[in-house]
């Protein structure tokens, strides 16, 4: 008799789980309120934002080409067509997933689900009908939702969040982004390239909290140029809608209050678990004090037949983490002795330049008193970076000096998100710096910066003269 599993939520975690379960011959039900799988990532997150960021990059590069003797006229932006194109990208991807559902014979129910007990779900279908659904195993993949600061959550069309900002209501003259994290900076970059004067206000002392400062510095320099204003150690204390804009009071570094009016404000301060309405109180599933569902390494909740994966079990809230967790949960249900225990989960910020890291960061190494060494290769020494006109990048390796094993990697520069994958593989394989040094990388590419960083560690880089320090 085939095993049965019901997956709640069809984001990148949920559909990856459902697909694998179907491939393993299980009887699979997938529940989501959208017509097709995709979740936040495809409908309102990664995919649409990257489509727009690609456009932003094109506009920026066309402008920069002037330096190289190629001059374009100021671009004419057809916002309706741009929005349509972005929607087409989303529709193509989600539609493709819908096809896969059929091919894999997954029972897809459009609606929302709540637990009645540890083996029954109540499903409210989009067509208005309600049904009770028995399950043997359930995987909660209901994801996260946008967090807001309640006191600032004014009812205004001019107050955007990460979802409505992707809908490009218009090209504002001035936009204020609250929160200097990756969502705010990515969307801010899109609007900046379309001609908006963007300002960002961040409560902490630097952009992208958590990322190593030497990686962020290149991005910060570029943002200072392309944005109107970057306000650190500052916070918005009041907001109100005025004619044609939102009046904002910002308490700055010195404690002074600044009043300014922006056409639009984008609040992007993070995400929180979407546990409400799931009926978890009718099960043995437990959440921690911050609301994330508690799971073990097998992604199993305190209710043995209920698993949880993805954003709803906590940070990092990343699609690729969710899909791997989803696959782990399914393998466990399939009776395999496995665990979710990666060495590294890569994080990528798709700004320009991109920032990506995996494994141990320098910040963490310092916090945890781990003895480490770094080996850095500035992109100014990379031939490929020069041909792109982009020397504002760096590749950094974090190394265990005793075993010369790679513990972490951080990259800043165009294409960092693609380059990081090699670092993740190296971390997973337990590679040491000799391995990286001896692996032939194609020339001229940006990937060489990883090999050259390893050479720097040994004081043997071809393109960067930095002899090994004598101790």
């Amino acid at each position, binding site marked *: 008799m085939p095993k049965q599993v019901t997956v709640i939520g069809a984001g990148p975690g949920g559909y990856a789980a459902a697909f694998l379960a179907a491939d393993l011959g299980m009887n699979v039900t997938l529940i989501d309120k959208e017509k097709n799988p995709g979740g936040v990532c495809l409908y309102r997150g990664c995919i649409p934002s990257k489509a727009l960021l690609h456009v932003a990059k094109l506009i920026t590069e066309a402008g920069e080409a002037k330096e190289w003797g190629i001059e374009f006229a100021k671009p004419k932006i057809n916002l309706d067509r741009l929005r349509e194109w972005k929607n087409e990208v989303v529709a193509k991807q989600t539609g493709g997933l819908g096809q896969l559902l059929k091919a894999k014979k997954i029972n897809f129910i459009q609606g929302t689900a709540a637990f009645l007990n540890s083996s029954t779900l109540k499903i409210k279908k989009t067509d208005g009908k309600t049904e009770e659904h028995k399950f043997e195993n359930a995987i909660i993949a209901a994801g996260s939702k946008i967090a807001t600061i309640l006191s600032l959550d004014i009812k205004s069309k001019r107050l955007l969040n990460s979802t409505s900002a992707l809908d490009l209501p218009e090209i504002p003259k001035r936009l204020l982004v609250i929160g200097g994290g990756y969502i705010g900076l990515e969307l801010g970059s899109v609007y900046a390239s379309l001609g908006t004067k963007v300002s960002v206000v961040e409560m902490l002392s630097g952009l992208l*909290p958590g990322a190593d400062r030497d990686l962020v510095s290149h991005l910060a320099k570029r943002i200072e140029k392309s944005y109107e204003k970057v306000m650190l150690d500052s916070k918005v204390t009041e907001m109100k809608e005025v004619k044609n804009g939102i009046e904002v009071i910002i308490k700055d570094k010195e404690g002074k209050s600044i009043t300014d009016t922006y056409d639009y404000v984008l609040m992007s301060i993070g995400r929180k678990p979407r546990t409400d309405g799931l009926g978890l109180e009718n099960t043995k599933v437990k959440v921690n004090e911050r609301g994330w569902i508690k799971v073990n390494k097998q992604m199993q909740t305190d209710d043995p037949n209920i698993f949880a994966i993805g954003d709803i079990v906590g940070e990092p809230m990343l699609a690729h983490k969710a899909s791997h967790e989803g696959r782990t949960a399914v393998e466990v249900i399939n009776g395999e002795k496995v665990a979710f225990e990666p060495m590294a989960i890569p994080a990528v910020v798709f700004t320009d330049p991109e920032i990506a890291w995996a494994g141990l960061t320098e910040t963490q190494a310092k916090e945890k008193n781990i003895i480490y060494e770094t080996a850095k290769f500035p992109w100014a020494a990379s031939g490929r970076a020069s041909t792109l006109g982009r020397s504002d990048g760096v590749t950094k390796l974090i190394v265990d000096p005793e075993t010369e094993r790679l513990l972490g990697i951080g990259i800043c520069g165009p294409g960092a998100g693609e380059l990081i994958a090699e670092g993740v593989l190296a971390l997973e394989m337990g590679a040491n710096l000799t391995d990286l040094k001896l692996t032939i990388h194609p020339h001229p590419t940006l990937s060489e910066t990883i090999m050259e960083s390893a050479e720097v560690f040994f004081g043997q880089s071809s393109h960067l003269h930095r002899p090994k320090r004598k101790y």
Partner: protein
Amino acid sequence: MSKEFKLPELGENIESADVISVLVKSGDKIEKEQGIIEIETDKATVEVPSSIEGTVSEVLVKQGDKVKVGQVLIKVDENGKEEEQKKETEKIEEKPEEKKEKAKAEKKDEKKKPSQEKPKPKGEKSIVEMKLPELGENIESASVIAVLVKEGDNIEKDQGVIEIETDKATVEVPSNVRGKVLEVLVKEGAKAKVGDTLIKVETSEEVEEPKPEVKPKEERKKEEPTKKEEKKKVEEKEGTKEERKKIQLPGKDDQPPITKGAAPAAPSVRRLARELGANINDIPGTGPAGRISLDDVKAYVKNINESVGAAGRGIKKEELLDFSKFGKIERKEMTGIRQKTAQHLSYAWMTIPHVTQYDKADITELEKVRKEMNQKAKDNKDKLTMTAILAKVSASALKVFPQFNSSVDMDKNEIIYKKYSHIGIAVDTENGLIVPVIRNADIKNMTELAKDINNLAEKARSRKISLDDLQGACFTITNLGGIGGTAFSPIVNSPEVAILGVSRGSYEPVYNGEEFEPRLMLPLSLSYDHRVIDGADAARFLRWVCEAIENPMKLLVEG
């Protein structure tokens, strides 16, 4: 004088045990032989009796701890009350060590509680337990790095009680109550689970719920000097921090655990190890900087399988079926005794070439005598049992056939002969099979043996047996006669070389040369280790046992 009571030797190869319950608390008066803790080893659940007497001043273990042989369990004040001792040490010349301790304590008090002289707030005093609060996402336990308070300390709210290390950080756990520490239930190096009681505090205040979040150590340190004066400020700061935490973006403490210690092995290698049930961190890597390859994992697992015994070689493990395919199932963890029984008997079965010899003893006359004698017995405990008779007979048989009282050392190609006769008696308890041992069965009479067996069986069933009572047997008797059966093949309790199985006696027609006569026959099954005992010897041994039962004079003449 304060004395420490340490976990005594538990027996061969037993280095540690799990604490099931702690039977004394601080302030208790204890006597010698009084049970201090109840522990579970691989072999049995036993009480550890005290070897000293006095007043318990400190209990250093708690339920769920793993304790090692030699580890201090409790501190006992032999003179009696701790209070008295304190006075004494104050009056009389202080010993340097104690002086130091005291000075330290005073200094600590000064530092942490400048307002010590103030009278305590009036009101009813209560004793509260301070528990380890929730530590954060997915953190269920932490290692205790340092215990920052001790019994008798006056502590303030928010004062650090212990320093713990989780996967994520080293943090101080602050007290949620102000008062006097009565008892410290954690110790350095131990693991503490969320919800475990850390200290007991006598307080006259109401207690707040434990704080859900503990502050990183460094921040606490910074705060400490200005704590009193700037309490308000601190609160304000905390408020902001809370807010910051709430809006913090992903990317802060979200990276998976690659740190220096992580085993260098590829994902496929780690997965194989998990499948084979090996801990990747235990596997030595042969690659550069100890990198672990697929072959390393296979070699490691193969090695472990082989070390189980030469007989295990060439036996391929068969995977279990997925029984849920056929119907409902339930999985339950094996108890410690079950695990040990399974491991031990598999080992015995694989290493010992077993043969079982069957015979029957005519107990018609013996039963008559036994019943007559038992009618005279005043106490049930004095009653003669068949097991006691068999213990006596077996002990005598071991003298006549010394190869049955031996063990084999295959590494040295030697046979070890024992000059004592301790008989193991298999006892069926609700916790599993336990085999208490009767010492020197050869020099005790049957009534004494019956009493001993009775006592030990009772102790085994009530979990009060000591590990001494479970070790040193030369030969085992397993009597299933009370339940029934005509014969069975017991497994030799290695490193012994023979075991006597007893089934239920029944009347059978026995031909006495002229006619069939109803005789009460007792079926006996003797399993033996063919490495040291030959079939003819076994037949002779069992026959001797039968004849001794039929004609007890044999015991006096030969035994």
